């Protein structure tokens, strides 16, 4: 009870002092007394007072408090207050440092670390020469905390296998500083078992060749923990510089041998199958590869394939021999790898497999044959171009387009397909002829006459893309095609071809009720003759529904010259609040503030001031201003 009363009394005193502090001897005495009070509540108020009035007298008392040997509360409160005062305290701390005892020097360095001001880095570096190892350790810790980049060399010079704790703290500090460094001196420390983990953590910062040297050491250790962490660091190194994968692979390949611990990388909790994929790629080892195929997720499998962009994979037989061992998805993946890794030995096998039941396998085969090339591959790809599965056909076309050109195109195959006129085959061959620049008017004309609207559409699309002027008049017939997609493509193609004679024909479509047609024709006319578009604004807005109204707005947004006046006029015809709001918002977000302002004032005039929601009308006004 007595203690409580005392504490309350003291607390009341220091709070009162804090509220109305003047620097008198008695006040300073009371402050110092409270700073070392046995009640933490009282000390807390004293710390607050110090941070509120951080003048010289207060700071000196705080430094004095640091030296208290018998009152830990006073030391801690002083340290806390000085840290909170921050930069203004630094000159006093520096001044007091050399005269202070070992503990106080350590406290001072910790306070400097807490202040986190880089100005003290050189002071901390000097402190590395302190006679006390504890002070040196504190300097290291606080150098790390602040991230003093210029301290790296000094820290490295202090590394000593005999002084494990100091070395550990230095390694931690180097990790915190985070700048790459030359770590020749670190290598011998790796023999100290307690230091291996922190050194390994440091690996991404260590410059070559020492980083690789450390990795090799880690993979060669018996410790499972080190092995798996080395694998993770290896992946980090790859991510840091993928272009160096080839060198990395050469350096560490022979140091990594399969062991079960690496399977942990597949565990859902770690989700590091990509790290495993890298190990499999680097080692080219059968056990790694088998586990990868059987356990890795799609992302890791894809990554494995992508490594080939950075480094070669020479154990191709590993992939080829696995082709028969798996089915469906895994077989498809292996077939894909054959192409990615340039497994020329796999070509015969792939061609044998091109009748595989699983569609993705055939698709992967089509992909790989495109990369492997050769006459047999081309023949097989032409067969795959007739596959029932659209993705396979598309891939076959893409692959063929890598292997053939207009000079070696087997036109007899195209002729045969056009003769029999099957839809899917026609679509594929058209695409292939187009992609290989082998298409001619004859094929396009044949395709236009196809009974399949998809084929006609494709032909029109190609005519447009290739700007085949000679077929412009022929295209006009297809404006009457019963299939709207064909019509749409024709309109688009006419715009692309750039024959101005077609503009008057296109103008007829401007009033189309079909939004897609209306939009396409506007864009085509704009490409051909923007001035004509300006002439036919009224026609564009004829019979516009609210739906197509918004469709037209997207064209305005794209910068096509549509009349904002007519948009406003149409909105008043619709007389719908939502449309007014949308239109106002549209003009504003499109940067047409003047039009937006005009619209809101018209709405206010016609509909009254309260018609639009406040935020709409106010935003318009503020934007307008």
């Amino acid at each position, binding site marked *: 009870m007595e203690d409580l009363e005392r504490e309350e009394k003291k607390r009341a005193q220091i709070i009162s002092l804090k509220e109305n502090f003047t620097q008198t001897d008695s006040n300073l005495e009371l402050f110092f007394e409270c700073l070392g009070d046995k009640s933490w509540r009282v000390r807390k108020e004293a710390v607050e007072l110090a941070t509120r009035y951080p003048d010289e007298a207060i700071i000196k008392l705080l430094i004095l408090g640091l030296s208290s040997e018998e009152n830990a509360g006073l030391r801690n409160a002083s340290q806390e207050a000085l840290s909170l005062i921050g930069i203004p305290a630094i000159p006093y701390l520096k001044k007091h440092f050399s005269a202070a005892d070992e503990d106080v020097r350590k406290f001072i360095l910790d306070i400097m670390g807490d202040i986190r001001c880089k100005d003290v880095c050189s002071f901390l570096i000097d402190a590395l020469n302190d006679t006390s190892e504890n002070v040196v350790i504190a300097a290291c810790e606080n150098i790390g905390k602040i991230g003093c980049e210029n301290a790296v060399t000094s820290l490295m010079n202090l590394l000593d296998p005999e002084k494990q704790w100091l070395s550990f703290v230095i390694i931690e500090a180097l990790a915190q500083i985070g700048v790459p460094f030359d770590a020749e001196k670190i290598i011998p420390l790796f023999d100290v078992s307690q230091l291996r983990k922190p050194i390994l953590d440091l690996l991404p910062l260590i410059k070559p060749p020492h980083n690789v040297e450390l990795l090799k050491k880690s993979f060669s250790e018996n410790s499972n923990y080190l092995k798996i962490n080395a694998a993770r660091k290896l992946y980090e190194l790859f991510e840091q510089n993928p272009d160096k994968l080839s060198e990395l692979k050469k350096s560490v390949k022979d140091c990594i041998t399969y062991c079960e611990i690496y399977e942990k990388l597949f565990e859902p909790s770690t989700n590091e199958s990509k790290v495993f994929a890298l190990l499999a790629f680097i080692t080219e080892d059968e056990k790694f590869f088998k586990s990868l195929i059987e356990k890795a997720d799609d992302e890791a499998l894809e990554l494995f394939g992508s490594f080939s962009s950075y480094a070669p994979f020479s154990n191709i037989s590993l992939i080829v021999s696995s082709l028969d061992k798996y089915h469906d998805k895994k077989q498809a993946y292996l077939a894909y790898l054959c192409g990615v890794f340039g497994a020329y030995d796999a070509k015969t096998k792939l061609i044998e497999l091109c009748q595989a039941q699983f569609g993705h396998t055939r698709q992967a085969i089509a992909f790989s044959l495109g990369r492997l090339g050769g006459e047999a591959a081309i023949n097989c790809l032409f067969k795959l171009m007739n596959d029932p599965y659209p993705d396979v056909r598309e891939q076959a076309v893409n692959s063929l387009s890598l292997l053939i050109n207009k000079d070696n195109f087997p036109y007899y195959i195209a002729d045969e397909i*056009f003769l029999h006129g099957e839809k899917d085959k026609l679509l594929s061959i058209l695409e292939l002829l187009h992609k290989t620049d082998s298409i001619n008017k004859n094929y396009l004309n044949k395709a236009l*006459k196809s009974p399949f609207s998809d084929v006609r559409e494709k032909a029109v699309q190609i005519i447009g893309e290739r700007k085949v002027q000679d077929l412009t008049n022929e295209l006009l017939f297809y404006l009457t095609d019963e299939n709207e997609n064909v019509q749409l493509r024709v309109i688009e193609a006419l715009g692309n071809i750039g024959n101005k004679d077609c503009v008057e024909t296109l103008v007829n479509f401007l009033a189309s009720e079909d939004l897609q047609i209306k939009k396409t024709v506007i864009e085509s006319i704009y490409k051909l003759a923007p001035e004509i578009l300006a002439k036919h604004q009224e026609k564009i807005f004829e019979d516009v529904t609210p739906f197509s109204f918004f469709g037209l707005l997207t064209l305005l947004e794209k910068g096509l010259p549509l009349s904002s006046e007519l948009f406003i006029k149409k909105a008043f015809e619709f007389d719908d609040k939502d449309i007014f709001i949308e239109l106002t918002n549209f003009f504003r977000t499109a940067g047409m503030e003047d039009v937006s302002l005009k619209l809101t004032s018209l709405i206010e005039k016609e509909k009254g001031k309260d018609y639009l929601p406040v935020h709409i009308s106010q935003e318009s006004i503020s934007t307008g201003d």
Partner: protein
Amino acid sequence: MWEMTSGIKLSDEEFRTLRDLIKDKCGIFFDDSSKYILEKRLGTRLKELKFQSFREYIFFLKYDKKKEEEFVFIYDTITTNETYFFREDYQLKAFTDEIIYEVVKNKNKGDVIRIWSAGCSTGEEPYTIAMLLYSKKDIFDNYKVSIFGSDISQRCIKIAREAVYYQNSFRSTTEEQKRKFFDDLGTAGAKVKAPIRELVSFGNLNLLDKNKIGFLPTMDIIFCRNVLIYFDGASRKAVVENFYEKLERGGFLLLGHAESLINISTSFTIRHFKNDMVYQKP
């Protein structure tokens, strides 16, 4: 096989309303004697759409969002598609022996001869024209030929694009012509050979649709045989006016043997050839 009737009766008033709707849309006119044909052909459709009466169907045609699609169906149902290859050979002879030479008189080598077969039904007429020109080396080797076949019926155009025909279409085709221009598909009919197919484009066109006709390039010759008979007077005038606008100066309009422009148009002049009499745009 006889055609089943739906059992839904078409009253005189409903007939007149339906007839007018169809006439306004596509110009095809049904006189009073055709009431039974409409009742029979559209009755099945009513059942499919779950309508109890023609009155409901008329409302549907007038006001429903899908009315345009339904009219397409009606065209397909009510139009007769009676046609065959090499029909009315005397007129075709006039075309190949005389008219085509008149046309090329005003052309240079390499120019395009454009011919429109308007209301081509399932495509026999435009393919016939293509076959005839393909056989005329002096024309075919010196000029580009572009034939356009159009019909109001999407079903007919689909058949025309497929270009596969059966016995009925070959009533005026000789064996030699069949061998020359068709691939025999056995029981699956005969398909027009690729080089002929490649000369003909098709489109879906209502001959009253001035707007859509506007998309077409101008023509040297228009065939419109046995089509105008389905139209009422006003629609015939409108169709012929469209033809007039679409023809080059000096271009020819070839109508069916029972058709003439009397009371329809005085814009054309009559040209008498050895084998036929045709209309020409002055």
